[in-house]
């Protein structure tokens, strides 16, 4: 099967600091893969390169066969990569519904003339957009909260809303940056179910960064371990978590 994401010899330097070096990732279509590693290993930096926030110093990134290096974040979003953030970055003053509609932005193409003059076709598309946004929210059990301000949602539901907003961009590849951060065990359990559901419902390939080993070993099929910007190990969760190098990296000698 073809790979959804192909990362080859990826590297980035900030001044003299080599934050990521010689990184290779191959993620098959439809896979659910984890990227783990100690704090400061460069995991979020990898996400920032995949989404065009940082431009890699060297190496290549291909999404579904297409090069994405040098593209701007909004172009990459259109090409099919969506993400969530380690520290939630919703649009706090907007409603839950509007947050999702921002994600839908690129799929409801109407011309400037339509939006200025509010033609009939515009209204129809706007209604379509509302319906689609509500449909996505309902997958996360958030439809009755549609009119709330995003900042008024409890923490766990804000995390869900971030995933909903990312899915609204209709991605091929979904990047989740520490989705379980700050969650209690029960919320983490729910989140695992949500991620599985998302994968089935939206047929999306998922790459996630996570520290919660229970979550990682519970749902990921394959893991990459990053340490000091380099790939330390890769394999199935069983292999990786018993790898002596990985144990040392996490716990020390």
């Amino acid at each position, binding site marked *: 099967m073809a790979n959804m994401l192909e990362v080859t010899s990826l590297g980035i330097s900030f001044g003299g600091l080599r934050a990521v070096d010689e990184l290779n990732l191959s993620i098959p279509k439809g896979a659910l893969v984890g990227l783990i590693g100690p704090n400061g290993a460069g995991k979020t930096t990898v996400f920032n390169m995949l*989404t065009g*926030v940082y431009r890699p110093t060297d190496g290549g990134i291909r999404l579904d066969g297409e090069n994405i290096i040098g593209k*701007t*974040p*909004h172009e990459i*979003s*259109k090409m099919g990569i*969506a*993400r969530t*953030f380690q520290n939630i*970055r*919703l*649009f*706090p*003053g*907007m409603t839950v519904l*509007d947050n999702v*509609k*921002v*994600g839908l*932005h*690129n799929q*409801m193409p*109407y011309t*400037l003339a339509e*939006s200025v003059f509010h033609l009939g076709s515009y209204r129809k598309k*706007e209604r379509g*957009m509302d319906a689609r946004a509500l449909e996505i929210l309902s997958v996360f059990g958030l439809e009755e909260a549609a009119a709330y301000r995003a900042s008024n949602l409890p923490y766990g539901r804000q995390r869900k809303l971030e995933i909903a*907003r*990312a899915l*609204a*961009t209709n991605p091929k590849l979904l990047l989740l940056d520490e989705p379980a951060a700050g969650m209690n065990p029960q919320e983490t359990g729910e989140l695992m179910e949500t991620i599985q559901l998302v994968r089935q419902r939206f047929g999306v390939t998922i790459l996630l960064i996570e520290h919660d080993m229970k979550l990682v070993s519970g749902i990921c099929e394959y893991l990459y371990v990053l340490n000091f910007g380099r790939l330390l190990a890769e394999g199935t969760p069983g292999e990786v978590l018993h790898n002596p190098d990985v144990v040392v990296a996490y716990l020390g000698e």
Partner: protein
Amino acid sequence: MNFLFNLINGISLGSVYAIIALGYTMVYGIAKMLNFAHGDVIMVGAYVSFCATSYLGVSPFLSVGMAIVICAVLGVAIERLAYKPLRSASSLAVLITAIGVSYFLQNAALLIWGSNPKNFSSIVGNASIKLFGGQLSIPVITIVTVVTCIVVMAALTIFTSKSKLGTAMRAVSEDKGAAQLMGINVNTTISLTFAIGSGLAAVAGVLLCSAYPVMTPTLGAMPGIKAFTAAVFGGIGSIPGAMIGGILLGIIENFSKAYIDTQLSDAIVFLVLIVVLLIKPDGLMGKKQSEKV
């Protein structure tokens, strides 16, 4: 009757401030910068309309359209050339640049149109409506100004809250980085904001010069500062705030002129601003900046 007359004139002057303040507040909300060249765009709008009617013989309403288009293009060009390269620079650098652009526009106007005051002829003529058996006479331009302000306000509110581009604008104003990662072209959104703000400045310029017809290249400076005051007064970043701030400022200014002292009116306006900010630092409709500990 005098009171009513002064109130209506105050609302009309305030409506001009409100339209200018909308430009300040929208740009601030989205680009997080204070565009001090905004006042001078008003001046350009007034001169363009003046030239179109006097030299090209265009009808007054078409001249307003031309002024809107030219100012919108000017606003986008200013943003692209002067502010965009500084987007990640300190806000102080951007502020100084904006002041520089302001002087540039004033001096360019001085070169093109000279320093002699020009006489702007009102787009709706000098007719007025007499009420209460001729006791109260209201110039038509006053009514046109107030109506324009209400229409602009309503249109902008609907645009930002209901349309796709408006949603994109709000998203960019809340979190540029996240908006970009959701597929929004931040550059286009910022350009659009400048285009709308500058187009409104052209409208304000024409309305202002229709009521106060003496035109000089520095005509935009004082209304610009007052409209900025109005935007801060109402809560910068808030569209209804700009409207309320502008109108209140116009009323206060006009009442000060009528009942206290013409010379002191500006001082009183700014005094009110200081008092409001002492009591309510975020302005009348501003978002409360509370910090979670």
